[in-house]
């Protein structure tokens, strides 16, 4: 080939000879972004703990034990006990199951729906875009907390109701983000090329658009998850989420915050768990978006 051509110095992010597989790319991202690594490790540890909670601790998170109530941290109860004599650490460890389970399910549903709708809107455009945009704006205009409260009051506080309710209130935001990302892709010449070939909408979506917005979707997932975790904990705190005695972080804070001066760990432990999970998700979102050049902050709150 050309002897004249001087290859430009490789852009800092691309290592020319690495195979272009997704896993390799993910691995490269992790290696290049310490923020993302730290964040994902936080999240992974939380997931592991939630899954392995029964193996990690022998205390039953639900069993009352009046003789052991309101104890400070000790060798026996590393994070002390609450007013029912339940081991705080056990409740915190098990607490991840509810928080993560509901959050992940809700986020998956939200992001999946939002991605499909967002891409469709971006590809179709025209009146479809206008109408859906207005409707989504209208949904967004109702405070999500109010919408959630109404749905939960109407349908009960079961985990699936909460998953559904969160999907309803947060899909519009995902649609917005994904639509924005897809709109940047749709006019690209490779999409035009596919159109000139006469490819179908679905094929263009799958082959051309999705692979190019998957970064945005991943970042959105991490960010949305952090938001959902916070929202669910707020719901629990208000008494609209998990019912007692479910070990749930928001509920634990609500239960123990009056006693915070006597047994601070009973409140602090779930707060720390909650905060580390959310920080992890945020770090992951930050790191990934930086590594992939996604403007994650653009969509704001």
């Amino acid at each position, binding site marked *: 080939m050309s002897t004249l051509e001087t290859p430009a110095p490789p852009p800092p992010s691309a290592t020319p000879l690495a195979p272009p597989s997704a896993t390799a790319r993910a691995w490269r991202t992790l290696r290049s972004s310490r923020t993302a690594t730290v964040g994902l490790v936080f999240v992974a540890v939380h997931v592991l703990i939630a899954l392995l909670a029964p193996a990690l601790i022998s205390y039953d998170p*639900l*069993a*009352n*034990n*009046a*003789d052991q*109530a*309101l*104890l*400070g*941290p*000790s060798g026996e109860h590393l994070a*002390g006990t*609450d*007013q*029912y*004599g339940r081991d705080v650490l056990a409740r915190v460890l098990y607490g991840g199951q509810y928080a993560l389970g509901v959050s992940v399910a809700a986020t998956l549903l939200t992001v999946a729906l939002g991605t499909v709708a967002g891409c469709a809107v971006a590809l179709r455009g025209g009146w479809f875009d206008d109408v859906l945009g207005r409707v989504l704006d209208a949904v967004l205009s109702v405070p999500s907390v109010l919408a959630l409260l109404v749905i939960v009051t109407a349908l009960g*506080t079961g985990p699936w109701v909460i998953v559904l309710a969160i999907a309803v209130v947060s899909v519009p935001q995902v649609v917005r983000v994904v639509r924005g990302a897809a709109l940047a892709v749709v006019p690209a010449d490779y999409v035009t090329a596919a159109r000139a070939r006469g490819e179908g909408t679905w094929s263009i979506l799958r082959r051309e658009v999705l692979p190019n917005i998957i970064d945005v979707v991943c970042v959105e997932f991490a960010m949305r998850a952090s938001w959902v975790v916070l929202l669910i904990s707020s719901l629990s705190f208000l*008494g609209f989420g998990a*019912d*007692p*005695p479910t070990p749930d972080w928001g509920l634990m804070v609500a*239960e*123990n*915050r*009056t*006693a*915070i*001066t*006597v*047994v*601070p*760990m009973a409140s*602090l432990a779930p707060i720390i768990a909650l905060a580390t999970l959310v920080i992890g998700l945020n770090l992951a979102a930050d790191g990934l978006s930086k590594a992939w050049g996604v403007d994650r902050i653009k969509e704001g709150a």
Partner: protein
Amino acid sequence: MSDIHHPGRRSVLATGAASAAALGASWLLSGCTGASAAPALPAAAKQGVPDPGGTLRIARPPASDAETLDPASALSAYEYLGALYNRLVRIGENGAVAPDLAESWEPDAKARTWTFRIRKGVTFHDGRALTSADAAYTLRHILDKKTASPQAAVLAPLVDPGRLRTPDPHTLVVPLKSPHAEFPSLLTHYNCYVIPDGSGRAIGRTGIGTGPFELESFTPAGPGRITAYEDHWAGRPVLDAISFYSVADMSARSNALLAGQVDLLSQTNLDFATARVVAASDRATIARVENAQWYVLPMLTTEKPFTDVRVRQAMKLAYDPEHVVKVALQGAGTAGWDNPVPPSDPAHITAHPEHDPDQARHLLKKAGHEGLAVDLYTSSYDPVFTPMALAYQDSARRAGIRIRVKTAAADSYYTQIWMKQPLMATYWFTGRPVDQLLTQVFRSGSSYNETAWSDRDFDALLDRARQETDGTRRRELYGEAQTLVIDKGGAITPMFADRLVGLSRKVRGYAEYGFEFDYRGIGLKGA
């Protein structure tokens, strides 16, 4: 409607040395040391002589947006009543009926007619002198259908408003429709505060009574203020004024106390954890009133599955009250064994079925409700509700009963949940005389019959008991009535709890008798 949870009891404040563990906020500075010591409550309200004057600030849970100062009403703002009004008779420190506006009273031989001598030299806040006409009007006001007083259900079978007589300004004669040997005890109820003759319509706003304080301002479910009534017949109160604030949320209330925004939490039995926090604070402490709270899980006998008496029995046999006392109260109370009459009442019977989860399981199987799953509603209205519910849930699990604890809003708990949901947690102040208690809460059709239980045998027993002039025999009849409630009724009574009252360390002379504390004697030191 929502003030069922007032009614008081005869008990004296447990006094003790203050273990002035002034931890305060030291944990904030020292890091989280936590409390590794064995759970213990340094319960100690300071006794001693208060300084004269001062304003006491009380936080109370609002009953409803329709609160009124009419003592006969179901929606009365309970905390104001004892300060603004007096009754004819009250419950004294020893638990016996004591004189208040009536200096003395006596029945005829068959306990059919009761004569009350009204105290002289008593004036209402508007300057008018108290006469027997006012007392008679008070009774007629209670019995007036338009008043819709909960106490009417108790008094109407006995008192004919048309036959009340006032032979002179200081004598009230009450002829009864049927004999009642303990009639005066029914007048100790907080619905029976004496109001001026003819004031029925205005009393809800004016609050004019003979009590130690007169009204300055009052907002339903809002703040209000009362000031010392200089001409009170028993002498001016220690305080200059009392300010009331409405705070619905329990933890907000205790935060207000801890922050020094209020001096006393009324209508608030602190849960054990909060009590520990309050006791550890350098601003506040707790006073403990033994067995002052009757905690109950009423099952609506008109709602499935509790229409079936076997299910009700199973629900009672299934759990261990001792476990509930231990977990929910850390032992600060007495197991109730489903008997609503407190252990301190002379009529209380100790016999009860033993905790028997197997039998409960068996009963449920027979009733076709094996593996019963029911919702149990609680709320942050009272901090012990949820612990009690969780302890019950934990204990009943052994009988295969699955309880789902549901948290409802505090604000609307007594309008939306109480007497509407089949199973919920609630409480009453103890301190009702046994007849009043059984009539008001368990008799068919009574307005506070929160289990909607209707049992003819039980009603007949009550009728016989109140006509019985022989004290011993009467107690036996009330005992039989208790047995019926335990066996067939819808009320699960896990326990009687000591009331843990949060108050400022500046408060002196806090003492509870009957339904309210001593408004005249309470004061502040070093305020």
